[in-house]
């Protein structure tokens, strides 16, 4: 089976256009990050007047980027770990048990995915503050509060995907394990988790990316000491000069871990989507 010449032409043209569209901003980010300041303050040029790595050095001093980085890392990793754990046990319950209220539960959980963040931002803030007032648990302005918030953002999709994954695993395997004397937890760990591993990785990527990139809640629920990158990057605009080269350098450094992680693990995401989401 051969593609016609016309088709090959169309493919060449369309893919070239898509590539240009995709690459342009990435190119601008990379090339601007190695430009001297006067280059980014004047008209755009395709190549730097000279290549300098100074922006990568200076960016750590212009704003406390290192602290923002640590905050983002702590919050995102904690939120990911917690949301994956919760999604696994919830997905297990939804997939393996018949119980009253299961449909309602899933409907409610999934519909939270469509809540506009702006609706519960302010109430959440007030609730956090009141929890602090009455119990002394500091949620507002702390990484803990942000972690709890973020873990719920990824949860609906994660539960759905993992439950879908578990559904594809025949119950006979559970039965066999049970006959061998395994309890539910052990069945989950020994039988279900290995098969669902790609789905779990997919969920973890999703959860991490959600937390790493969130702006709205981070801007309200953090203070100077717990600020994350998403908000901290704005700090470059509060300078006597907008150091666009540093902004681009910082953007590059912030993006790299996520992009590399995502690209390295994306086959799991494809797999996870195929097995879990797509089978509705």
């Amino acid at each position, binding site marked *: 089976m051969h593609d016609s010449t016309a088709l090959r032409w169309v493919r060449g043209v369309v893919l070239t256009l898509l590539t240009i569209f995709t690459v342009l901003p990435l190119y601008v980010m990379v090339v601007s990050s190695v430009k001297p300041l006067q280059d980014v303050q004047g008209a755009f040029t395709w190549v730097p007047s000279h290549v300098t790595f100074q922006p990568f050095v200076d960016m750590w*001093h212009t704003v406390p980027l290192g602290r923002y980085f640590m905050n983002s890392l*702590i919050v995102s990793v904690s939120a990911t770990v*917690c949301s994956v754990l919760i999604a696994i046990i919830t997905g297990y319950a939804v997939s393996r048990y018949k119980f009253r209220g299961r449909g309602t539960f899933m409907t409610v959980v999934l519909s939270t995915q469509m809540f506009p963040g702006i609706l519960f931002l302010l109430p959440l803030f007030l609730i956090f503050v009141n929890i602090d007032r009455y119990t002394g648990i500091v949620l507002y302005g702390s990484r803990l509060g942000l972690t709890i918030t973020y*873990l719920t953002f990824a949860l609906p999709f994660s539960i759905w995907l993992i439950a879908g994954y578990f559904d594809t695993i025949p119950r006979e395997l559970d039965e066999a394990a049970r006959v061998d004397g395994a309890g539910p*937890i052990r069945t989950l760990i020994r039988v279900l988790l290995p098969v669902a591993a790609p789905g779990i990785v997919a969920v973890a990527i999703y959860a991490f990316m959600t937390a790493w990139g969130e702006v709205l809640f981070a801007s309200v629920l953090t203070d100077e000491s717990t600020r994350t990158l998403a908000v901290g990057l704005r700090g470059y*605009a*509060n300078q006597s000069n*907008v150091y666009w080269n540093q902004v681009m350098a910082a953007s590059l450094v912030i993006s790299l871990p996520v992009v590399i992680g995502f690209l390295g693990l994306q086959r799991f995401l494809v797999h996870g989507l195929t097995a879990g989401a797509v089978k509705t």
Partner: protein
Amino acid sequence: MKARGIAALAASAMLAAGLAACGSGGDNKSSPKTLTYWASNQGRSIQQDQQVLGPELKKFEAKTGIKVKLEVIGWPDLLNRILAATSSGQGPDVVNVGNTWSASLQATGAFQAFDDATIAKVGGKAKFIPSTLTSAGAPGKPPAFVPIYGLAYGLFYNKKLFADAGIKPPQTWQDLVTDAKKLTVPAKKQYGVGMLGASYTEGSHFAFMFGAQNGAKLFDGGQPGFDSPQMVAGVKQYVNLLAGDKVVDPTDAEYVNDSDLLKDFAKGRFGMMMIQSYATAGIQENGMKASEFGVVPIPVLNPLPAGGRKVSSHVAGINIGVFKNTKNKDGALKLVDFLTSPDEQKILNGTFGDLPVVPEAYNDPKFQTPEIQTFKDVLANSAETLPMIPQEAQFETLVGNTVKQLIADAASGKTVDDQAIKNQLTAANKKMQSGG
């Protein structure tokens, strides 16, 4: 089987515990021996503010034994952060606010009133220049704040460009427009006036000033009058620099950060700009010598329209206040007293390019320059206080954003005539009414 249930319970409990362990708890907010102070961004960058205030706060600690935790907050975030702190009671002990917000923030009831007993603890009423206290809260009530930095608008001009064009600093608004046209040479990318077109605060200030020159009253008996013919004329006076007279580079409509404007001014891209006194420091940092630019009061319409007032600035500045929730009120007041003491006023205002709020500080020679004298004159003779009513902050955001929108429209080639201005101001006015 029961054991399995227990196991599951144990698993859930562990998860819950793990969940609670996720993240690391926040730090303890305030204790009697420390104070949290939110400072506004006065310097060229937040870092500069920290570097300037840091050593001064150390002096305070040495004097009183109270450690001050400093957070410098950029202007785009400050009001929202204060609102959040107000609604939560989780705020700093001491905070800087834009003085125009004073009455609005006073209305929330979250700030310690400076009644006679309280103000006595920070040096008494007589310590401050009287005009600066007019914008510290609603009239008839004890002020909710005291001033810390004074500011005023002035017209900065580039001496060389003026000499080249053979003109002198304008005395009237009409002169300013004529001069600006002489300075405008689009082919050379040179313009008459520069403006921070995307800054809503600037927009609201000019709407107020030029509205006043045309005889407008922003609020009458608590009712907003944003769309009166006088206000329309005032807004037009400002926006028309770009829309009709075309003496402003349309690019300025994107400018929100003074750094853009100061840089362009220092490079001679335009001849004049109307900006607050703090710009003096920034211009020099951008490489322009003090001898290369001058400052005069922003000229007013001549003759003034019926009912028009000679206003070329509002009583601008920064106030400082104490949150009622503070656990250390005495310490907080001590900090306010310290920062408004003549010595500190000299150091801080001198560095930031602001005007001291206590008369004694002006003894220092660095406040005896012609520029400072101009600003003092403006404050004394042609400055009016923005209405000190609870709705003031909404006026700034609503009308300021309207002006910003009009400038953007003008810059992108839309017609901005009286009708367009009136429509937009009417919308802002109605929003004000329905919002309150």
